């Protein structure tokens, strides 16, 4: 197969208008995604972490083209799908799927589970009725449910079971790329582990490429090959799992990592506690979005210039957007 990554994003931007006043005129814009460049190779799992409101889910929905980007480019398997519409998107829809966060709102309450799962097959005209039923049965068993569950309704299932149904629905079309938008954050911890392991198994079994969105670094560590950290609509740092957890470059990543609870009361903790709040994406700070809260920000540089994602000096696959660590201040020292 080709070396070309399956998904390539170039400077992707999504702005939402903020309307106000009697006439509903646009008074401001929210930069939910403010220029994201990254690529995802075939078969790998990329974890995407960040605080609430940093644009993770928006990025996920842009990638599945549930939203149309304001600017930038999405290349999927060599084809530009950035601004495709309606019918043109249909072949793409078959290859890219999404798993939602809330299992209680992601299933149609009036549709039998089996019909929800087979919807994709129906929409793409795959198989006849019997074939579809067979595939639904197979899919249900694959995600750990039973064949007779197909005729039941969503309200008869628990949260974990519903999430399995959501996974079955997303995977029945045998997609190449799946965006999992916080698939376990609405579940109990014990169920989280089950669903995570299921996703991991399915990923290797079906040769999936996965973008795993979460706000929990521990969950991401379990499943990802590479991890991207997002802050206010931009990628702060992206690298393989080991380097991120052992050798974080961006000060924001350091702060996130130090916030992971460790079940050992004797272990000394040197926490990096961030000052202040996440700035509003309506009115983001100048320069590096992180500089007002950054412990190592350099005045005159970080508050003026926007840092680019740059390679670290020691590892070419380790990218961070920080003037001090990887940018021009790092090169000088």
């Amino acid at each position: 197969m080709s070396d070309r990554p399956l998904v390539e994003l170039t400077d992707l931007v999504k702005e939402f208008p903020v309307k106000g006043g009697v006439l509903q005129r646009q008074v401001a814009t929210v930069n939910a995604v403010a220029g994201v460049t990254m690529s995802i190779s075939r078969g790998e799992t990329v974890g995407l972490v960040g605080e609430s409101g940093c644009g993770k889910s928006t990025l996920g929905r842009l990638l599945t083209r549930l939203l149309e980007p304001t600017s930038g480019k999405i290349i999927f398997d060599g084809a530009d799908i950035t601004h495709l519409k309606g019918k043109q998107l249909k072949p793409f829809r078959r290859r890219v799927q999404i798993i939602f966060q809330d299992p209680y709102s992601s299933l149609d309450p009036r549709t039998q589970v089996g019909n929800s799962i087979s919807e994709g097959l129906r929409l793409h005209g795959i198989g006849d009725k019997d074939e579809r039923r067979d595939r639904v049965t197979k899919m249900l068993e694959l995600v750990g449910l039973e064949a007779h569950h197909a005729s039941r309704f969503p309200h008869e299932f628990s949260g974990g079971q519903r999430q399995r149904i959501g996974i079955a629905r997303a995977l029945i079309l045998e997609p190449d790329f799946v965006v999992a938008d916080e698939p376990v954050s609405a579940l109990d911890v014990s169920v989280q582990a089950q669903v995570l392991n299921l996703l991991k198994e399915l990923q290797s079994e079906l040769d999936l490429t996965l973008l795993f969105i979460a706000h929990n670094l521990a969950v991401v560590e379990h499943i990802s090959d590479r991890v991207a950290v997002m802050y206010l609509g931009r990628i702060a740092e992206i690298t393989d799992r080991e380097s991120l957890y052992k050798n974080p470059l961006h000060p924001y990543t350091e702060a996130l990592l130090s916030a992971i609870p460790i079940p050992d009361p004797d272990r000394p903790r040197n926490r990096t506690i961030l000052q202040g709040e996440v700035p509003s994406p309506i009115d983001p700070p100048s320069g590096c979005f992180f500089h007002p809260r950054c412990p190592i920000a350099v005045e005159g540089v970080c508050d003026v210039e926007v840092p680019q994602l740059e390679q670290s000096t020691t590892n070419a696959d380790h990218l961070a957007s920080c003037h001090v660590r990887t940018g021009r201040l790092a090169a000088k020292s």
Partner: protein
Amino acid sequence: MISRQKSIEILEAQSAQHDLLEKPLSQWRLTIRRFRGRTSGMVGLGIVTALILMAIFAPIIAPYPPNQVLIGKEDVGPRDPPCVHILGCDENTPQHIMGTDGNVRDEFSRVIYGARISLTLGFFTVTIALLVGSFFGAVAGYVGGWFDNIIMRIMDVILGFPSLLLAIAIVAVLGPGLENALIAIAIVAIPAYARVMRAQVLAIKESDYVQASIALGASSRQLLLRRVVPNALTPLVVLATLGVATAILEAAGLSFLGLGAQPPNPEWGSMLASERNNLFTAPHLVFFPGFAIMLTVLGFNLMGDGLRDALDPALNR
């Protein structure tokens, strides 16, 4: 001891079998189960069922044709009070359990036949208003933008008038008569359905399961018909049930004013109107049609309330 163990085994086997055989609980089954648990809703359903049966079997129940004038056929006069034999009325006078009206027709037969007119009118107006209103509401909510604005402003204009006044104006333009009253009442009722449908569609089209369908490749039409509308219908069912009551009341109002059903049609509202001057000399001629209107409206309202209670907790679950 053995027999006891055996009976436990049998019980277990039965319950396991029962578990397997139990049908999946669809939303409708749950709703029916909850609806049954509510007395007021069941009373409403009872009244409505009785009225429908009465309307269907009117020729069997009614002792006389509704428009038959009994002068010269029986020994009765205009506006005779009710005469029920079991309640002590003289066996020699003919039985008219609701008396006779000003034209010497059997009031009871006319009230029975009146159910036909009122119920058909109620169902027809609500069906028209429901179809037209929810179509515009669904499209407005789904398409949005200027289309939404235009449709909803038109609806606001209709809502701006008091409904009976607007209905009178429409009938005045179209001319009096039952069909025109039906059209007028339907037009007046459209905005309520359009608004509720639009609000539902706006909420549902953002839900994750609709997004999932989009991601699977569903077209707008498929989304609207398969996902959005079926999930939006619940409150409309309630609204329609309550709407039948309003429509019947408005039809009676229009007929009372002489704009709806025309004599000699046995319509409750026009029956009230023709005898309103004799309220003190022949109160039964105003009481019985009025009571019939009240009972019908009460029945549909109770049923609608019961339906709403039964359907509400099922939402978003």
